[in-house]
């Protein structure tokens, strides 16, 4: 075997079992079973997912980000739990005022309560981020994964279609498509993001499925007589899903800011809807006089995006037994 200067594989091979593993192989020469197992009681059967969950529960990064996300989801569903006010009730006389009792974040340029609006804004951002990522991930990985697995004619067709979508400028596309829609809900924005976002995930999924497909263990399973669905679900998906998760969590952040951009341009959500994007763009011109009005929604946005990225990172690590 070609020698490498340093072999992480071998270094890992000894962890926690060094002496015993060596014994196992040495005994093979004499055909007796290996020595007693010191590694604790008889282990129950485990699967990849249960092992991953076992790891995640002990990972502080996961716990913190999951708590943040849980909190965000709760306040998106029931904002009035922590914000009794009405985000649309504004008093111009208080415009740009600082913190007051009962209004800890102060007021924005229109005299609206920044605290209430920040809490209510979570709903839009979380809804757009989560739902469009979900849509993009499902559509993209199913199409890309199947194309990568089966190859051939439909794979070529799909590749050309993704090329076409990549050529569409996102903001211009948004201006054209969304300007004809009058509905003031999050759905057109989500639909638009899914329409333009899936090719990115589809490419990643196709690539990682093709890589995973070529591994000998897939051939080995096929030689055992495994069906295509078993190959896809047991062997290929677990080994191809990590890049999709990573790209999707990063994309989630960009989708939230894309919503803000579109709202700023007047084609996303429009007032009286409440969204961090709308508030950020509204507060941007007054950054000198009333920085708090910009700070709180931006901070909320940053924390949200960070939480999703850290969550994705933790899940990816947990799904990789090599790091265990």
């Amino acid at each position: 075997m070609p020698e490498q200067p340093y072999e992480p594989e071998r270094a890992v091979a000894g962890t926690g079992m060094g002496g015993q593993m060596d014994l196992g192989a040495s005994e093979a020469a004499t055909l007796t079973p290996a020595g007693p197992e010191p590694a604790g009681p008889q282990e129950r059967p485990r699967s990849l997912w249960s092992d991953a969950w076992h790891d995640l529960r002990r990972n502080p990064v996961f716990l913190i980000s999951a708590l943040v996300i849980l909190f965000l989801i709760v306040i998106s569903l029931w904002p009035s739990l922590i914000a009794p006010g009405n985000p649309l009730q504004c008093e111009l006389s208080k415009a740009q005022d600082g913190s007051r009792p009962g209004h800890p974040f102060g007021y924005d340029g229109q005299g609206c309560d920044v605290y209430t609006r920040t809490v209510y804004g979570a709903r839009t951002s979380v809804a757009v981020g989560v739902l469009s990522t979900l849509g993009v991930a499902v559509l993209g990985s199913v199409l890309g994964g199947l194309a990568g697995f089966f190859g051939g004619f439909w794979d070529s067709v799909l590749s050309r279609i993704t090329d076409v979508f990549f050529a569409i400028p996102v903001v211009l596309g948004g201006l054209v498509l969304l300007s004809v829609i009058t509905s003031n809900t999050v759905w057109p924005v989500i639909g638009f993001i899914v329409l333009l976002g899936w090719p990115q995930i589809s490419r990643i999924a196709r690539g990682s499925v093709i890589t995973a497909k070529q591994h000998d263990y897939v051939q080995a399973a096929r030689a055992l007589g495994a069906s295509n669905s078993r190959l896809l679900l047991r062997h290929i998906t677990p080994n191809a899903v990590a890049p999709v998760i990573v790209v999707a969590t990063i994309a989630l952040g960009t989708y939230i800011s894309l919503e803000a951009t579109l709202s700023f341009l007047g084609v996303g959500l429009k007032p009286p809807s409440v969204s961090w994007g709308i508030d950020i763009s509204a507060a941007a011109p007054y950054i000198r006089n009333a920085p708090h009005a910009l700070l709180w929604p931006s901070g909320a946005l940053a924390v949200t995006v960070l939480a999703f990225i850290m969550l994705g990172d933790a899940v990816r690590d947990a799904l990789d037994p090599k790091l265990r």
Partner: protein
Amino acid sequence: MPEPILEVRGLVKHYPLTRGILLRKQIGAVKAVDGVDFHLDRGETLGIVGESGCGKSTVAKMLVNLERPTAGEIRYKGEDITRLSGKALKAVRRNIQMVFQDPYTSLNPRMTVGDIIGEAYDIHPEAAPKGDRRRRVRELLDVVGLNPEYLNRYPHQFSGGQRQRIGIARGLALRPEIIVADEPVSALDVSVQAQVINLLDRLQKEFDLSYVFIAHDLSIVRHISDRVGVMYLGRIVETGTDTEIYDHPTHPYTQALLSAVPVPDPEAREDRERIILAGDVPSPTNIPSGCRFRTRCWKARERCALEVPALAVPAAFRDEGGPAAHDSACHFAEEKRVVPAEGSGGHGGGPG
């Protein structure tokens, strides 16, 4: 003579070379395997040797139905398995299993050892009753010399040699009759190779297995094989028992191959004749006419470019018999001993 357990006739695999993205046009073919015949008897080991690109791995893949042949037959107990599909194919697969070369990529890194070996029973539920599977997996680990308690470990926690044992256990799970091993030890360290070779030897006796053993290392192939086939550019050029091939080779390619193997004996280096072949192996997209070895052969004459030599006992040896009288696809076959005779120097018995 009893019927062979496996018989291969006229096996061909051509990969089309295409151009164009949506509308593909064939512009040629990679002739990876180009007419291979052999048989395998019950309980014996057939070694297939050859250099990279000779098509030996493609043959292995066709034997276990990972690739469909372009033409030819693979008869398992008389039945052609190349045209099977669905249930019938699945049933045949139980009996012909494969051991892969690379112990690092042949095990799914995200499955436990127990799941990897036990997967055979998920796919073929009739092979073992549900409650019995765990016990069988433990038994298999024990058989290949691993601690049965390693069931819940992941492949990366094992060394290369141990992984190869796991791969062998997976191959044995369905109690096959034939194991196709494609370079099973070439990725392992010298000291671990011997362990795995001995294991394969022992399993063959224990489970009455027939092996097709594919490798580029001629010494290992001699050690493990009863009969040997030498492949060059998609064809078998010489085949016979291990003594016939190694001690009485008649095909010039076999002779060159054997003479090039470095022998671990410094005394032999001065008086050993080495046949150094000119040039490189031709591309399998453009195979020479007539004898495919003629472009590198020092004996080539006009006839070699015109006539494809058949794989048969050469006329010169047909009558006299003896070890030189075995199948060799050469118009000008001649016996030539290239491996130094046994016991000319080197070291004696084993340690301890």
